[in-house]
């Protein structure tokens, strides 16, 4: 007895500094609870509801609705729009990013372009559609483009207005990572500008470029505000159709149409973003 109490009192003072009863992970519980309720739970609801029929039973055939010609049409519309705007946005954005990056790193142009890109890429939304409506719409200032309400070209132009800035933001670090020494070395060895880009700069930037294109693709896929403000009567893309089926319960019979579409999109975005992450890792090998 005496020995036991002795060891107990002997142990206590050394532990007194930190309360041993609370394990460290308890500190993360508020965060985990919040993310659980507002991120994981909604994601779970989408997946579960997509696989259920209206009477509550499991119905994996709901997924086969993704092969329905009507549904496929929206996915094809989304794909067209995303391919056009991600490729053109990536090419033009990369050119602009190079022009900005080759200037003074502390200069006004760079600050203006980066801040402006942040605004247009992040918080543009419906205002971008209004801006183009003022420029090219039926009563537009510059001219009245007859193709303004054509899908996909009219909306592609508006999408470029936020895709190019996003490309500038995500591709700029890669260009900044190109070392001056590499350029000097190739010039000292007599390389022309073309040879430098063909054999040094191009291959170094290629993974970052492809990764950024994928990011633009995912961004275009999930954009909704701009296309809704551009044309809210006709649905061309998956997000528009999700919106319609959320606000009206009429859809394909017996399934949770919005959930099935959302699940289909989630799968696409996850695949794309995984590719993006892999390419980013590849890109960061040289550019740091």
């Amino acid at each position, binding site marked *: 007895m005496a020995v036991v109490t002795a060891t107990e009192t002997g142990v206590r003072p050394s532990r007194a500094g930190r309360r041993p009863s609370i394990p460290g992970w308890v500190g993360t519980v508020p965060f985990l609870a919040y993310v659980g309720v507002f991120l994981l739970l909604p994601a779970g609801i989408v997946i579960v509801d997509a696989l259920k029929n209206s009477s509550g039973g499991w119905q994996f055939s709901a997924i086969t609705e993704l092969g329905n010609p009507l549904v496929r049409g929206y996915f094809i519309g989304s794909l067209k729009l995303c391919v056009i705007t991600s490729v053109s946005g990536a090419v033009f954005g990369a050119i602009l990013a190079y022009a900005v990056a080759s200037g003074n790193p502390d200069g006004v142009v760079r600050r203006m372009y980066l801040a402006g890109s942040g605004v247009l890429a*992040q918080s543009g939304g419906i205002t971008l559609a209004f801006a183009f409506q003022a420029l090219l719409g039926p009563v537009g200032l510059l001219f009245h483009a007859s193709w303004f309400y054509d899908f996909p070209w009219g909306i592609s132009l508006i999408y470029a207005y936020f895709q190019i800035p996003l490309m500038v933001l995500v591709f700029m670090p890669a260009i900044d990572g190109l070392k001056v020494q590499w350029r000097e070395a190739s*010039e000292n060895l007599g390389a022309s500008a073309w040879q430098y880009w063909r054999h040094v700069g191009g291959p170094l930037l290629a993974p970052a470029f492809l990764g950024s294109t994928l990011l633009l693709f995912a961004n275009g896929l999930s954009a909704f505000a701009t296309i809704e403000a551009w044309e809210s009567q006709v649905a061309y893309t998956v997000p528009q159709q999700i919106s319609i089926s959320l606000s009206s319960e009429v859809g394909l019979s017996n399934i949770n149409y919005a959930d099935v579409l959302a699940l289909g999109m*989630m799968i696409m975005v996850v695949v794309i973003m995984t590719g993006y992450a892999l390419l980013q890792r590849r890109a960061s090998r040289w550019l740091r």
Partner: protein
Amino acid sequence: MAAIASLGESGLATPAERPRGMQVRRRRRLNVFRYLVFTVFGLFFLLPLLATARFSLEGNRLGSWSLAAWKEIATYKGPPPLLPAIEIQLELAVATCVVVLVLLVPTMVWIRLRVQWISRVFEFLCLLPLTIPAIILVVGLAPIYNFIRHYQLSALTLFFAYVILALPYAYRALSAGLNAIDVTTISEAARSLGASWFTVIARVIVPNMGQAILNAMVLASALVLGEFTVAYLLLYNNLPVELFSISRNTPNASVIFSTSLASLLFAFALLLILSYAGRRRHRGRG
């Protein structure tokens, strides 16, 4: 903005900063290329904004000029009225910033100090919203908000969802800030001088990562100010949703253009301030 800026740049691009190895001819060609690019993209980005500005300054008669639409921002009677929507938007931005910071900063510091093994999971969760965009999230959020709606709360409840949307951007900003300071050493120093965990976080670590916190706040507000998808589909009225309804009720109402331009300029000013604040800090340190 771009065209004006490119004029200012010509004086700033000091040739001394360029590699000496680059020949003069090539340097000149690069400059021609740059000014060409700035002009073309400057026009592409400026023209729609200028058109918006012109529409916002349209008077009663076609082709006349007037400031009425700008004065109308505060007084527009609708349908729907604008001022409550502007207020709710600003409140949403503040609420989102506060909740994101309260949620992330203590947790990130705690993880760095005490539970390193959880950091991978934590990072994954913070970046997860990038793969579940708003349009997908909103489908799953609808049942949850139907539940919340029983309590008759205002559009301010949207901040629950906005915090999730802002999470990846805020996480990146804060993580960069935490990497720049030696969290372990300074918190051990504070702890051994008798500070509580609250004091360590609020009075030792937070003041040392002011720039990162500012970054996170600006990014989160820029995101909230233009957010349309979640509010629209959960049937709450924030500023972009109200602008959308006005555009459907009264196509080409000047007030849409003045308000959209004002909100874009506001976000632009926020980001520009951020970029200059960052530079001042940087210089102060170096």
